[in-house]
């Protein structure tokens, strides 16, 4: 099932399918180790459309709601 990261419930394991949005956002995500094909776990989601916390490659990264909604992921379980 493909969804955007902002809509995934915390606790899910996901695989990055596609990163939409401009060059800036793609490059900054790739710097933090987020590329298409990578696995991540959605850890928490802030209240009132707050940011999403994911763990990727043994590291935690906070993504603003706008950024998260540009990342298409496939929910694995």
């Amino acid at each position, binding site marked *: 099932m493909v969804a955007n990261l902002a809509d995934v419930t915390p606790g899910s394991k996901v695989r990055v399918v596609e990163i939409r949005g401009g060059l800036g956002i793609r490059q900054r995500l790739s*710097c*933090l180790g987020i590329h*298409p094909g990578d696995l991540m776990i959605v850890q928490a989601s802030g209240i009132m*459309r*707050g940011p999403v*916390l994911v763990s990727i*490659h043994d590291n935690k990264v906070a993504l603003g709601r706008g950024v998260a909604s540009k990342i298409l992921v496939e929910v694995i379980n």
Partner: protein
Amino acid sequence: MRIALVGQPNCGKSTIFNYVAGYKAITSNFPGKTVTYSLSKVNFQGITSEIVDLPGTYSLTSFDLAELETRRYLLREKIDVVINVIDASLLSRGLELTLQILELNLPTVICLNMIDEAEAKGIIIDVDRLSQLLKVPVVTAVAHKGRGINQLFETAFQMGQNPIRGKIFTFSKDVELVIEELRKHLEEKKYAQKFQVTERFLATKLLENDQHFIDEIKKIDTKFIKKVKDYQQQLEEYRARTSDVVISSERHHLAMDIYESVVTLAKPRVEIRNYLDNIFMHPVLGYISLAIVLYLFFHFVFYIGELVEEPLLAFFYQFLPYLEEKLNNNSLIFYIASGMVQGLAGGIAIVLPYLVPFLLGLAFLEDTGYLPRIAFLMDTFLHRIGLHGKAIIPLILGYGCTVPAVMATRILESERDRFISSILTTMIPCAARITIIFGLVAFYLGPEAALLVYVLNIIVVAFSGKILSRLLPEVTPGMIMEIPAYHIPSLKVLLAKVWLRMKEFIMVAWPLLIAGSIFLSLLKYWHLETFINKLISPITLLLGLPIAVGVTLIFGILRKELSMIMLVQALEVTDISTVMSATQIMTFTIFVLFYVPCVATIAVLIKEIGAKKTVFTILFTFFIAICLATATRLVY
């Protein structure tokens, strides 16, 4: 010999730097606090060398200002040895930068820092194998304990004497083909020499759509950029992905390959800190714990300050009657002497009691790694005022000192966000203004009144943010921020950091306090202060403050704490509550809190956002100060 420390944000470069150079660079547990490089001549193990601590950078493709600074330094300055510091617990990601550093073809030593953290996570690294693969020496270290630093620098010195260049890794064949073609064209044009990089490095960066290089070449050769675009398109056709993604994915895969061949995974150690975020970043518990943390912080500062302030003030003021007795209280010498006592007393008894516990508390929060959690919690609210979560970091640092806080706005990506948060940062009560809030409002009107000032301040900052982002409508790029692991701060580092920040107060502010005090005494002696007070009387009258307060407002622009210390002297009393009503004390504090940033802040604002925007900031804050202080006069 010049040695540069290069690595990703929060990997411990500044910790290593401080270990060899003495505590000179502020270290904290959040990514991106080093925004400008520091350089130090160091005599280590009998060899004199110059060590440069560069801002952390995730990659050598340019985005934010701090990263650009690092790249500029690496490309332009002569560097004998690069020490590439990697956070061993984030090895795979760190290697992506390492691959790019090796492409620069400079003598390189790799430092696997925080090796203990990696082991706790169950990442066991075969150091020899890594060294063989990269063809450069690899040294392990735990920088905050000083472990491995000697060996690191020994290795670096050897490298400086017998330079070795590491392996340059190649990508997949189809990608290499395109890089090679572009490289040949670059060779003809000699652009690589212009930027002092290798042709291969430049070719890869151009394919990655590196804005800086593309813009520079566009200025002189638009035809060439067309060619670059053709090659980018070729890559896109091969892989059905944009060219920047192709290159970064290639690098990512190379790094993962190296990582997999040198790492064996063990079971991670079970640690309490792994579970802390279940509370601190929880949608509900997170905010409750934030409130508790801030409440404790506030009380810690107030409690210690109050404990010390009163006896110290009493101690100093016993000298004044003594002076009056000994010296003719109309003589010039009496004025000078009493000015000096006032200045000394202000520094020791009013500023220090609050400044020291405050800085200690702030250092503690910084080093544990709690600040990025606050950024996470506040993101949604900051969005409402047109910024994003990361902007909270300069704002929090603003409670310490506005100058580094304005510099910290560089961690924000867009120019508009930097401008707005710079203005907001100047309105946050810095340590100097905190001493005013504590020494005046909390001392005379009680801690609840001081808390009220803080709450009001936050509301005003939020409203100002809202107004400014309405004036400058633009969608903020959104937050992408690393959340580092928690660390237990070392007391030694905390004290060193407090001392570094205190030194600034003792060396710069205190002499100024004493000089200002004496100067004010002299103004009084010659009856000149009435003239200045008259000039400022439109403001003091509007705010319903005693006319004599006017001159202190001028001093406040030099240093914020001056305005309170001068107040004691200008009113010629030791107990301010005898001449100023509660309303007047509140009005004065509110005005001083917001009006015109201090001289040092103005200087750094001009550097960071330019003269025009600085003038706007001054007018904006002054306008807010007048409105709020007038309102306070009428309401409080």
